[in-house]
């Protein structure tokens, strides 16, 4: 980059120093149209997920069967058609956002909490603890995630909670690695040294100095992980290891409709699209965040 612009953007940053860091990130994020579309979609999906039970009644509209109306093609009454038990696919897909999102989010949360804690400990304390943690991470990371998921769900039994546990467990290793790497880069910065110098406790240093400064790669990882957990959940559903019926989780809908993929393609099309749109949206947001949080990648 040419030196003029470098110096000018330096002065730009100087000028906007009074703006908060968040506003600056938001400003950069806003410029990424794809990310904005993604964010909008994510908000819509979260909205639907949160208010799903206000919009629809679980017992009468989501899970109640109506054999007389089974396998209806999409029409005005049933926008996405009905499934083999005569349940409205449109309502099930909308309600399914709750199951799918919560599976994705909970799994990621588990990975985040465990992974971040271990990563922090490994990165901050180093030494033998780090070796142990990183070796364990290598072990878990070296088994392909989907296989690990299959093994865990098979071992613990099919249930939504176990699905979340399995997906959460498999995402731990990436959080450990990312957190550790980020902690390593900030560990020896002056402000951390300063904290140590004035005798702050280790916990205080980690929580008030180190973590806030390595959040950005973690935040990006969270959004991407939610997306991949949703896809992974659908994969496990395909193998019969997904959520318990009659929950309308998207992977379960997709998997249930797969025998009708030729005769009733709409049964897989809509849940498939729901997964696709959601995963795309989360990925777009993740990519946008990555760019916005890491200005050195941008001009």
């Amino acid at each position, binding site marked *: 980059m040419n030196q003029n612009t470098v110096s000018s953007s330096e002065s730009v940053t100087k000028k906007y120093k009074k703006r908060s860091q968040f506003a600056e990130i938001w400003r950069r994020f806003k410029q990424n149209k794809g990310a904005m579309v993604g964010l909008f979609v994510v908000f819509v999906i979260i909205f639907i997920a949160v208010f799903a039970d206000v919009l629809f009644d679980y017992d009468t509209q989501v899970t109640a*069967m109506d*054999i007389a109306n089974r396998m209806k093609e999409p029409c005005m009454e049933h926008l996405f058609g009905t499934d*083999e*038990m005569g349940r409205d696919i449109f309502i099930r897909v909308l309600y399914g956002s709750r199951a799918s999102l919560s599976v994705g989010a909970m799994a990621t949360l588990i990975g985040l909490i465990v992974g971040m804690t271990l990563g922090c400990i490994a990165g901050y304390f180093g030494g033998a603890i780090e070796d142990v943690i990183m070796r364990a991470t290598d072990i878990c990371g070296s088994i392909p995630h989907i296989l690990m998921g299959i093994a865990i769900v098979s071992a613990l039994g099919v249930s939504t909670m176990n699905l979340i546990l399995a997906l959460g467990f498999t995402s731990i290793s990436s959080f450990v690695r990312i957190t550790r790497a980020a902690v390593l880069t900030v560990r020896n910065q002056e402000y951390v040294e300063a904290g140590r110098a004035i005798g702050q406790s280790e916990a205080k240093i980690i929580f008030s100095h180190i973590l806030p400064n390595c959040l950005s790669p973690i935040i990006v990882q969270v959004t991407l992980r939610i997306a991949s957990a949703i896809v992974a959940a659908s994969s496990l559903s395909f193998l019969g290891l997904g959520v318990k019926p009659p929950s309308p989780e998207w992977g379960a809908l997709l998997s249930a409709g797969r025998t009708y993929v030729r005769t009733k393609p709409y049964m897989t099309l809509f849940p498939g699209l729901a997964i696709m749109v959601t995963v795309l949206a989360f990925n777009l947001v993740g990519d946008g965040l990555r760019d916005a949080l890491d200005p050195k990648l941008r001009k």
Partner: protein
Amino acid sequence: MKRVLALVLATIMALSLVACSSGAADNSAATQADAQSATEAAKAEAPAATEAAATEAAVPEVEYKEEVIIGTDTKVNSLDIQENCAIASGYIYLMTHEPLVHYYEGEFFPKLAETWENKDGLEYTFHLRKGIKFHDGSEFSADDVLFTIKRAKENPTTHANVKAFVDTIESVTKVDDYTVVFKLTEVNNDFLIDMSKTGSLGMLSEEACAAAEDGYKYGTGPWVNSEFFAEDHITVVRNDDYWGELPVTKKVTFRLIPEASARLIALENHEIDVCIYPDASEYSLVEENPELDMFTYTSGLNYIFYNVDQAPVDDPNFRLALAYATDNQQIIDGALGGYGVPATTTNSLTAVSFFDDFESVGQSKYTRDLDKAKEYLAKSKYPNGATVTIQFTTGQREIISQILQSQWKDIGVTVELDKTDSAGRAAAKQEDKWQAYLASVAYTDAGNSFSETFVTDGGTNQMGWSNARVDELFKQCAVETDEAKRYEMYKEIQSIIHEECPAYPMYYALKAIAYNKKVSGVKWESRGVMEFAYAKVEK
């Protein structure tokens, strides 16, 4: 209900007739042959078949492909015929191994035994065919029969069904190299049917099994095991030294294609010639395709098994309440796309002992009747309803269990769904931690065959149910020779089971095998045990 049943049966018959038209020559020839003149029949069989083929295709000579490819859905784990009773493995065993007696649609035909005699139902003498060689070159003789039964009795991996049967054989003795005598522990009217099961009692070579660990893969059949790759394919090649009629085809490959949709596509795409079990939702695609045909048959009986030791399903009144809250037709429509026959009693549709006219004995059939269901519920230990956990393994049963959940809710019974895999189920059963389980059982046509589910500690008695009267009646049936008297006893058995409802009969699934119209020579069988030994595909 009856009309539907009749209709379905008619369809099956028609379909199987059409399907068998080309193979009919073999059948009729075989039917004509009686036990005494089996050798002649075998000789006569071949010219009859060629004759039929000649008249069929008088002008252009029909050429056949060297290989027939069959797409299957179930992985066959082992070629050990005593270890496996699944239909999918039966297809292969039927081609490579032969039993002493052959059973087809209600009749017996000689196979490795040319003739046999029965004395007082307890002693059977088989006169073995001479000059027959196993695939490894060893000669078939009485020693091999003795070895086969001994192995089944002693090998720990022998399938429980096989073991249960061989345990009814008290002893096998060799009279000479080609004569053996079986002594039974008790009279068994179904003995010959059991003996005909290739899966269990195809003859193994003592020499081969002693020489190699996988010696069990050598049989005497027209086909020799060639390639075994469980997740991909199992190939058998023609046994050119076969004692009977040689197949036209040189090689048969069973390709495992687990996804039903993909399997049917492979058939439509001419990648395979026969597609085992297309999904019911895609039967219409087969019907619409002018190149394809389908053989449909009713398969095993699908039950809700109740663990009678576990609350709340320990109470017969509670189970009856559930029975009268269930609508079988809805299950068939919802989970099977209508391709099934509602079950009314706990027996095979085609069994001689079938009985479902419960009104005649002062009972009523299970039909959805919420008032009656609530009556029974009120009589039960759980008048305010309860929670029942339904355990199941496969995809289709996932829908069934949801339908049951929906139906039973109407009488205040809550259903928890417990999806598991077969290992999980095995563990639950072992630890007795389950309440209701969805499964199917396939019975033979023999009158006693459903006993294995209902006698105390029977092979498929998952329920832990035990009824002294039923045990007694089954025992009597096995020895009773008067057909009418036997039927009366079967009636009583089914009526007792109906009253107690330890297992609720839901439906007989209508299964299908789709195939290219160029395929001929398959022996379609109404229980689903198809024989592909003489399958051939026109070029």
